[in-house]
């Protein structure tokens, strides 16, 4: 009897035919949405609208409705901004970097991870806009020709670099995501029966016909965009970190920030992907496509980046002492033992200790545990940004100006609101878009030979 060793765990479980894949992905779009979807969408919409209300109140009244003060000019606004941008890192990393590295397991998750990225970057982009005292003249950050005595932007300012970095990242991610969606939209179009849906999906699919030439171009464009997007994965958060690293504030002025921020971003992004996918695979019956193996791979990424982040935290502490700079030393002492010690230790617990548990195989393959840790990591990463921003400026150089930050209910409302809006977008995505890159997934489907091998007929003959 012939023995065959299983080299790798299969990426798609069970005996799925090409048609099964199409069916599995298109079913949620074609069927009536389940009750649960409406409930979740309703909740997200209400929270999102509350957030919109808070933003409108903020715009109508002034930044004073937040809990900022003369010493603390940024707090939840920029914390949320960096948090969302960080979350928005996983998608492009998965689709671009893993594409270049030919990691096939990415195919099951890249579509929704990218969608998450785009929605997260939307949410992130909102904060730099609304944190401006005068949003209505916010377009001045763009280097537009003008008649204000030909006023130009200040290219020295990291905030300006942010504008470029975020907008580039958003547009490239959006294009990359959309290109991937085209063949899948065509599949849905071809199956659609209702005229409106058919019309909509045919517009969205840009007249894709599935010819070999189309596929050829599709592959080329994907590769080019992956090449373009890869540096962006690293540049965006590096530039966000420059907001702090180029300043003179102890605790911000840190050369370690760019790599530390990028790792932190990947760390939190993967955690968010886990949070979303673990729910989605269950709700949409995609267990065969997204399973323990995928979760384990992602957990390893979380473990590695979490360790890097932890190392960065400890390096910062060491440098603050080793530098001998009074203010630097105090800034870090104050983080750990000052009035915001609880934020610091929440961050340390969530970000340094929890990913280390992933060394245990049993835990990193446990879906429940992964879900729990993914939430813990994102709480930890929110605190990381809060610690960096608020605990550094609340006690910087001049003790007479030292202050404390207390969030107002508008601070909280805007933050919760963005989470609501994010889920509004994501739920709409899950309802109307193919959540799996179905045409790509088909490429990793085991061949019919494998199916035959595992079929009863095969055993009969041997």
């Amino acid at each position, binding site marked *: 009897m012939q023995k065959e060793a299983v080299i790798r765990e299969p990426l798609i479980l069970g005996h799925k035919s090409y048609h099964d894949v199409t069916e599995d992905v298109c079913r949620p779009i074609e069927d009536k949405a389940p009750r649960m979807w409406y409930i979740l969408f309703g909740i997200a919409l209400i929270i999102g609208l509350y957030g919109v209300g808070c933003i409108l109140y903020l715009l109508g009244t002034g930044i004073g409705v937040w809990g900022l003060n003369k010493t603390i000019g940024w707090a939840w606004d920029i914390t949320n901004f960096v948090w969302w941008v960080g979350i928005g890192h996983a998608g492009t990393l998965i689709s671009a970097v893993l594409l270049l590295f030919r990691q096939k397991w990415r195919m099951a998750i890249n579509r929704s991870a990218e969608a998450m990225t785009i929605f997260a970057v939307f949410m992130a982009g909102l904060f730099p806009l609304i944190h401006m*005292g005068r949003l209505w003249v916010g377009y*001045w950050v763009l280097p537009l020709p003008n008649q204000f005595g030909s006023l130009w932007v200040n290219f020295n300012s990291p905030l300006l670099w942010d504008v470029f970095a975020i907008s580039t990242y958003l547009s490239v991610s959006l294009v990359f995501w959309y290109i991937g969606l085209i063949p899948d939209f065509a599949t849905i179009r071809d199956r659609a029966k209702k005229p409106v849906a058919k019309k909509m999906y045919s517009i969205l699919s840009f007249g894709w016909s599935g010819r070999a030439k189309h596929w050829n171009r599709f592959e080329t464009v994907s590769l080019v965009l992956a090449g373009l997007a890869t540096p962006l994965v690293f540049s965006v958060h590096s530039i966000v970190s420059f907001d702090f690293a180029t300043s003179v504030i102890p605790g911000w002025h840190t050369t370690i920030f760019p790599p530390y921020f990028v790792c932190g971003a990947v760390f939190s992004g993967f955690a968010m992907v886990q949070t979303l996918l673990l729910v989605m695979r269950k709700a949409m019956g995609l267990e065969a496509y997204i399973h323990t193996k995928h979760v384990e791979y992602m957990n390893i990424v979380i473990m590695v980046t979490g360790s890097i982040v932890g190392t960065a935290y400890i390096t910062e502490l060491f440098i603050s002492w080793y530098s001998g700079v009074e203010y630097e030393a105090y800034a870090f002492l104050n983080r750990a*033992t000052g009035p915001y010690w609880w934020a610091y230790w929440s961050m340390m617990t969530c970000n340094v200790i929890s990913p280390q548990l992933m060394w245990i195989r049993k835990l990193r393959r446990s879906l429940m545990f992964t879900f729990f840790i993914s939430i813990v990591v994102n709480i930890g990463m929110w605190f990381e940004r809060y610690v960096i921003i608020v605990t550094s400026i609340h006690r910087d150089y001049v*003790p007479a*100006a030292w202050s404390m930050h207390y969030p107002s209910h508008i601070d909280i409302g805007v933050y919760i609101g963005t989470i609501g809006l994010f889920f509004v977008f994501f739920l709409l995505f899950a309802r109307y878009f193919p959540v799996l890159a179905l045409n790509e997934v088909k490429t990793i489907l085991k061949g019919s030979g494998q199916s035959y091998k595992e079929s009863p007929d095969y055993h009969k003959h041997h």
Partner: protein
Amino acid sequence: MTRKYWKGLEELKETPEFIKQRENEFPSQVSVEEFLSDDKLNETSTARRDFLKFLGFSVAAASLAACEAPVTRAVPYVIKPENVTLGMPTWYASTYYDGSSYTSILVKTREGRPIFIKGNKDFGITKGGVNPQIIASVLGLYDSERLKNASIGGVDVTQSKLDAAVISALKSAKKVTLISNTVISPSMNRAIGTMAADLNVNGATKFEHITYDAVSYSAMREANLQNFGAAILPSYDFSKAKSIVSIGADFLSTWLMATEYAAQYGSRRNPEKEAEGEWMSKHFQFESNMSISGSNADYRGMIKPSEQAAVLSYFIKGLGGACAIAATVPASAEKAAKEALSSLKKNKKNALVVCGSNNVGLQLLTNQLNSLLGSYGTTIDLNNDLKLFQGDDKKVQAFANQVIAGKGSDMIIFMGVNPVYTLPNGAAFGKALKGVKTTLSLSAYADETTTLCSHASPDHHALESWNDFQVKPSHYAVAQPTIRPLHDTTSALESILVWNGKASRAGKDSNVAYDYIKETYATLFPSGDFAYTTHNSCENITVAAAAALTYKSAPITNLPKSGALEVILYQKAAIGTGAQANNPWLQEMPDPITKATWDNYITMNPVEMEKLGYVTTYDQEHGLDLATVTVNGLSVTLPVYPLPGQAINTIGIALGYGRGANGEKIGKAAFQTKEYGGYEVGENGLHVPIGANVFAFASSNFELEAVGTIKKVDGTYKIAATQIHHTVMGRHSIVRETTLDTFLAKDKEAYNPAHTLQKLNKEGHHEERPVSEFDLWDAHPVEKIGHRWGMTIDLSSCIGCGSCLVACQSENNVPVVGKDEVRRGREMHWLRIDRYFASDEEAAVGQRKDKETFSYSKAELAAENPKVVHMPLMCHHCNHAPCETVCPVAATTHSNEGLNQMTYNRCIGTRYCANNCPYKVRRFNWFNYPSYKKFTEVNPAQDDLGRMVLNPDVTVRTRGVMEKCSFCVQRIQSTKLVAKKEARTIIDGELATACSDACPTNAIIVGDWNDSKSSVFASSNSKRAYQALEEVGVKPNVWYKVKVRNEVNELLSSIQVVKEAPHHEKKKGQH
């Protein structure tokens, strides 16, 4: 079926006229020639010229209405008034006197509006001495709640009607009492004198004049009467005192004529003088509360009010005098007392002892001590006595008791006083006023007393009226109006004259007071030129040397009682006795010591608070514990504020709060406001006043020390303070302090070392080089080219009075944000005064005792009786400004004169600049302060009248933009323009910023740093000059000068030594 509609009956009836008219499309065909040739045209009401005017107006109105911001009240000058040039300020020399403070001032007017007040440094005896209340008083002029006209029984009447009523009341009254604050006006005294002479029944006058001061100095006069035979207040000269001992007298802020003393004191606090063969005074303060004077003292002892006598006795006995009182000095003042005694012994007649108590016994002891020292004739001048505070406590109390008993005069005139609020038995007095037939108030507000009066004839604001003053026999001063009266008020002097039949009203442009003052002037200066005196605001009078008063001892009785808890009632620099409690600038001015705004509270030493279980820290959300203080059966509940330096077993409470408690309309800003705007309304349906009135705690002889009890009650109260961290955490590059001996004997390196970094030298060795040699950036081209504006602030001279802060607010249209916003850390002051207490970890403020064992957590706590440093801080105009690089839209940029400029129009409000400012001096417009409802009650810019105080040279900022100190760029520009027009360069000292202008001790020097002969350049190169946070490398244009205390501090001296050269330097030869 069609319906037909008629235009009128004519059409229905088809009258011939109608048919005729229907034919013509245009009803009347009158040609232009025909129309114009009509003879009757001229008889119509609309003349051709009028028509053109209407036409022109309509076009103008239409185009104006089309503009975004229509000019609604523009009054053009058809004929240019003399001295008024649009856009150019006109300055008037005048004199300020409000019953407690006196000073020579200069008033800046723009387009006829007074907008800024500063001390007059050229004329008068106060040499530019001011306090925050004087500077802020300009805002009171534009208070919309000032009384606008006369009233009888609360109903507005014309002035003539009131005059008639008053004249008849004066006639019919059996006895008339005029109760006023101290009148130092020779003209007013003359007018009152004539009234006293004229109002008589059968030769005996039925008129009495009682002088009443809210805070009394009667005991000093009484003591001088007993010791010298004259009930006078002497003149003190702090500039002649080498040794100053103050027993509870806050002579730099509120005590007697502090405006004069602050400048005198400041002139002797410059340690460079000592090096030049002059001398620096040595200041000892013994007090219960931490006062401004105490915070500046070289030595400060904490004593209870009841221990003041013992301290005085200790000195008397130490100097060989006889004293029956035990000389037991408490341990908390022992060191200071010992040093003070040896200093007094050394300086003898060049010493000065002052005592702030209104207790006759203590003042007698003080006199005995001064006479032992021989200070009379050197630092104390009995000849040229001070005319302030002439109130006689006994007379006032007798009068009040009579009124309360219903046996007093049947007509009372109140002038410049508010006894219902300030009398210890004010409430009873107020109740009794109803029983008095005629009560007349001359107050400018419907205050506590006025609302209970039957008649009100509001006085002008000081800036609207003529006045004259003689604060000392040697000095005559004039106050001139700087604006035509805004309302239908009348000058008090004119009123007295009119009511006595000596003059008649002449409306707003009345010359009555002016002529009367001129008459007085003519008697004082028979050959004087009144116009010249008015121009300078004052004139000196030679006082004939009187026979020297000789000291004779007097028995000492009734010294302050001791108790388990002694309560001290004090005046805050901003609020004083509460006369200007409605002034939002003053309410929002952080108290120089506690840094709290908009409230009064109980001050207690945190060491004691820990023991008694009170919380000792506070911030935006964490309030302070409430406690009830009971004195003489009266109780007040207030938060307990942790104030280091408060003597143990004593508490302090500020006077001047709790105004308008019965809903009196004393001003918009005098009440507590809510988080989203509007007033806080109490259970009684009235507006909740700010703080609580504690005048009732004063004893019946007006002593401000009392014995009471304190009991913690449930609940906390949030305090709005601008500073919640009180120590400098041993940061030597922010505050530097040294002793006079170290300064004189040692190198700069010992007490003011430059920051160094290691640099590789040519041989490849590390070398310590000053921070100034390191640079990441290209230098701005400001050095040695054109102007470069710089400033030095002398921490030794700065007394922390807060005048600069209010002057800056006044000059730069800084919005008032109210208590709730200050509590949230959002006050808008461009200039703040950081106040640091030394901790037990520091040998002096900012100097760590031991670098190895230094503990941050211990350094957060102030010492029990800490040393204090006041540090004014504004934008440092860094040449490598961190704010400039981070602004994405280049809204903050560097000028080629070294200024860090803020372009409001360009600002999009990212606040990145504020975060990146190491000094944290940038202020963000969190709301639209000139219009948002939260600030209606507090921000004067939201009031049509209040807006008049705005400086037209400075933009009012909108919401969402950043602002900060501009170095008064508008003043720089105008100074440059003046120089340019005169074809010359700017003269050193010509430019003054609002803060340097206001500083009574000349601690702030501004000028052109590129001018190597300028005083700012010299000052910045002094041994004491340093740049705060120099090592950050931002290269500021502001220098501080090391605070020098004239004390012996062995620990500090042992730390501040010149460090040995680094070892590799020494080993150089071996390489």
